[in-house]
Each structure stands twice: as C-alpha cells, then as structure tokens.
C-alpha cells in the first residue's frame, strides 16, 4: 500500500512543469501606463483606457517543424486585470516557435452562448450581431473629433471577407532544457501603423467587421515579441 503511494509520488514528479507565459505591455519602448500620454508613429497623442484581447490555440513548433498543442483554451487578456496577464499552459521541449491565435474560434461565435472567458457578460461579444470582439482598444486623443475626444476600436468578424482572426508566430532561440517561462512584450503602438497607417483623426471608431477592422487586426498581430525565456 505504502509502496503504491510512493510509486504514485514518483510518477507525479515526472509530470512536466507547466509553461508560464507573461504578457507585458508597452507603447513603443515605454512601459504602458494607463494614465500616460503617448505619441503614435503618425504623431497623434493617445491615452489608453481599456485594452482587452483573446488568445487561443497556443502551440509550439519544434526544430523539425512538428506542432505540439499547448492549450486549447481561450484566454481573455485584460490590461486592467493583472491576473489575466499570466497564463499557464503545458510545456514541451525544443520549442522553436510559439504560435497562438488572436481571436476566437469561428465555430464558437455561432454555437449558442459560451461560458468562462467567452461568457458574453465579459463585454467581448457583440449582442447586435453574432460574433466576438477579438480585441478592444479604447482611449482618448486630442485628435479624435468625437464626443469626449474618445476613440474606440473594437475589432471582430469571423466570416470572409472580414475575418479578423490572426495568428502570431514568435521565434524562440531553442534551448536544451524545457522552457518554463516566456515573457511576451505587447507593443500597443503597433495598432496605429505596423502595416496599415491608422489615424484617430480619420477613423476614431471601429465597431463592425469591415476593412478598418481588417487593417487594425493586421496591425495588432504585429504587437508581440518574445522578450525573454527561461
């Protein structure tokens, strides 16, 4: 009986340690602070109030090109909720690329109401039309010609031609030991022009699947870089 218990203990100790992924937020090179004022690449001033986005289908690709799923869950990363900045997934060896989906699986947009991080009560589900807001960025800018100088980017859409789901694929220098920790820098300045230039003066609002949503999605998909691994 005691032998069995020890055997169980030993077996448990062989379970791989989880991989912890930390998201840290920046605006260009500065650590993002919700009260601070930043300047976009196109010279507009912005203060961020709210930033939330979904990630899902986290995978590792090894040197041989083989893919290992690390998590099938959907995570809602919310800049105002520090607990959400850390996620734990299973780890694997010889990771060469960390790949994750930015957004929500298309089927879950239309399969009734989901729970947990996908509960529409989280405010990331469009109730006026079926579909999740994949990423949301709200703030104020003197360049916004709107009430309260507010700008509001809510990027969603899961059907062609306005499918806002993107994939981030981040290169990792392979290490011999199993990686236990990855810190990802998330640079919000990319929203305004990593690929397509976006000016708040011209487009302060994005609230539906559209060309603007596609441009914003193309941009923020470039926000992520690996800062360190351990």
């Amino acid at each position, binding site marked *: 009986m005691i032998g069995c218990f020890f055997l169980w203990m030993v077996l448990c100790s062989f379970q791989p340690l989880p991989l912890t992924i930390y998201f840290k937020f920046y605006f260009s090179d500065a650590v993002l602070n919700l009260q601070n004022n930043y300047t976009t690449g196109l010279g507009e001033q912005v203060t961020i109030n709210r930033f939330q986005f979904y990630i899902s289908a986290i995978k590792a690709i090894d040197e041989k090109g083989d893919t290992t799923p690390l998590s099938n869950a959907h995570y809602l990363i919310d800049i105002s909720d520090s607990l959400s900045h850390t996620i734990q997934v299973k780890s694997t060896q010889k990771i060469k690329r960390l790949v994750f989906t930015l957004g929500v699986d298309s089927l879950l947009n239309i399969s009734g109401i989901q*729970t947990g991080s996908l509960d*529409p009560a989280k405010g990331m589900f469009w109730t006026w039309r*079926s579909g999740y807001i994949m990423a949301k960025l709200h703030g104020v800018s003197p360049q916004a010609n709107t009430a309260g100088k507010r700008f509001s980017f809510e990027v969603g859409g899961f059907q062609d031609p306005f499918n806002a789901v993107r994939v981030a694929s981040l290169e990792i220098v392979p290490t011999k030991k199993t990686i236990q920790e990855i810190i990802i820098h998330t640079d919000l300045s990319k929203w305004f022009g990593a690929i397509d230039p976006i000016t708040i003066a011209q487009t302060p609002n994005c609230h539906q699947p559209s060309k603007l949503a596609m441009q914003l999605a193309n941009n923020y998909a470039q926000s992520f870089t690996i800062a360190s691994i351990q």
Partner: protein
Amino acid sequence: MQYAKIIWALTITAFICAGWGFIEKDLLPSKKVQFIIPKGWPIPEYDFSKNPLTEAGIELGRQLFYDEQLSKDGTISCGSCHQQFGAFNSYDHPLSHGINNQLTTRNAPGLFNLAWQKEFMWDGAILHLDQQPLAPITAENEMGEAIENILIKLRNNPAYKKMFKASFGDEIINTQRFGKALSQFLLTMISSNSKYDKVQRGEDHFNASEQVGYGIFKTKCAQCHIEPLFTDYTYRNNGVELDPFLKDLGRMAITSNAADSLKFKVPSLRNVQVSFPYGHDGRFFSLMNVFEHYRNNMHPGPSTDPLLKNKIPLSNFEIGQLRAFLYTLTDSVFLKDPKFAAPTEVTTNIPPLDSH
C-alpha cells in the same frame, strides 16, 4: 427464528425507504420533454442535444420571457413587444417600443416555429437562437440593460436560484444557462394548428374561396413563402423604398455588400391575420397595403428580387380569394395556448407599480 427473519426484512425495508426519502423531489432531474415535429415538416435547425428540453427549463424560460427585470428600468419584458395575441409580434405597432419612450427602428416579428430558423432578425444578424435575446436586452433603445446586471438580479432572487437548479442541476446562473432556458421556452412555441394545417392533415376542408386563394398563393407567392413554414428564410429586396428617417439598408449592414441593399428576411405568413402592421419597419398597415405594394407601388431597384421585376399582377378578385386563404393560416390554438401566456406565479422581486 421466524420473528428474527421478519424483523430483518422490516429493518432492511425501513432503511431502503429512509434512503428513498433522502432523494428529495427537486434533486431528481426535471422531466424531459420530447420535441415533436409536426407531420411532414422538415428537421429542425436547432441542436436539441446541446440543450435538451425539460419541464423546469421551459418554465424557467417562460418566467424570464415575461420578467420586466430584464430591462434597465424594470418596465419592459420580452413579452412587452412579443404579445401572444399577435402571434408574439408587437400587435398594431409599426415600430416596437423601448425604455425611456424610445422607438426602435424595426417591427418586432412574430415568434413561432423558431426551431426551424437558422438566422434571426430581419437582416440575419444573429446566428443562434440562444444568442438572440441578448440583442434586444442590451440595445439602448430596447431594454437597455447589461448582461452582468441581469445575472446579478437573477442571482439575488431565491426563486430563480431554485428554478436554475431544477433546470440545470445546480444554482449556477450564467449567460449560457439564461440563453438556454429562454430558448427552451421559445422552441416550444410551435404554430401548427391553423385551418390550413387541419386541411393538410385531412381533418378539415377549404371553402371555395380559400381553395381558389390557395391556388393563387401557389402560383404567385409560394416561391418565397414556402410551405409548411411559409418562408424560405432568405433575404430579398421586394421593392421597398429606403425610409429617409430610418435609413435601414437591411442585410447590407451585415454583409457590407451593395448587392444586399434593402434585402430583408422573408417573413412567415403563418398568423398573418393578427401580425399587422407588416414589413421590416411596419410600413404596411394592412394586408391591402401589402397587395397594393406588390401589384402597383413597388420601386424596383438594382437589388430587387428577379421574381418581382414585373411586380405581382393581382386582380381585386384574386386579392379577395388570397386573403381568404391567408386567413386559414391563423392558429387560434397557438394564440390562446395558456402554456405560452404570462405565468400566474411571478418570481420577480420588484414591488408592483401602484396602479390607480
């Protein structure tokens, strides 16, 4: 020895009975309800395996449907704009009403046979029945409430806790269960007992006018209003003009495709007698207005349906016969079924308004 045996038997029986007593009534899963497809009807679109109907779930859905707490100021329930005597449309209202004296931009459609419907709203914005109630509940000009607030109100109500437990096994109240319960009630709203249905089942006969009207219907209307649901659930531009105040482009708002300009879902003609006014914005006051639209007043545009390029020629005689047939689609069993009426036992914890 004999006594000992009897005592043993009695003791064991007593233990079994005592054990049985511990299984409380409300711990037993609620009685399942079989969804019956009317004879000759297609397979429903709704996936019942994800949300099996139970007596408790349907009753919870009915309570929610008629609960004014679901609106921000506690004045409007789903049932306020979806009235049973109008086949759950907004009876005699072109545009339905919202909180704070607001009007919406569309005519609340009748609610029935929703299990067969894949997309909801006049423009098909909503793609699952469970998700549909979230739209009017959260819209500023309808019920204006946040989902989180509704969940808080329900969680603070002991009667709802009990009902969620009876429906789903425990007291957890979340958006998913809220939507599933409402769907359970909505799915039971089947309208299949009109005179037309009775004729189809061989239980009744059309009179002469109805029979002639049925023939006209089949040649001039049935391409879009397909039996037995009397709609094909497609989006079509039937030659309506853009309303300059509402500026409602219909399906185009969803697809961003100019070819979908002014396209709206083909409505079912079941219960058409009681679901006036007609059209996505209630612009047609009466059936006569609709007939006049199709034979004279249409404004064909680039996205107008090819079937209507030459309008629909209809004589006064044909209109009379057609109307006689359309009235056979009125399902008075459905319109008066107490199963769908507001519950007599109200679970709301809002004190009643002082009504003078």
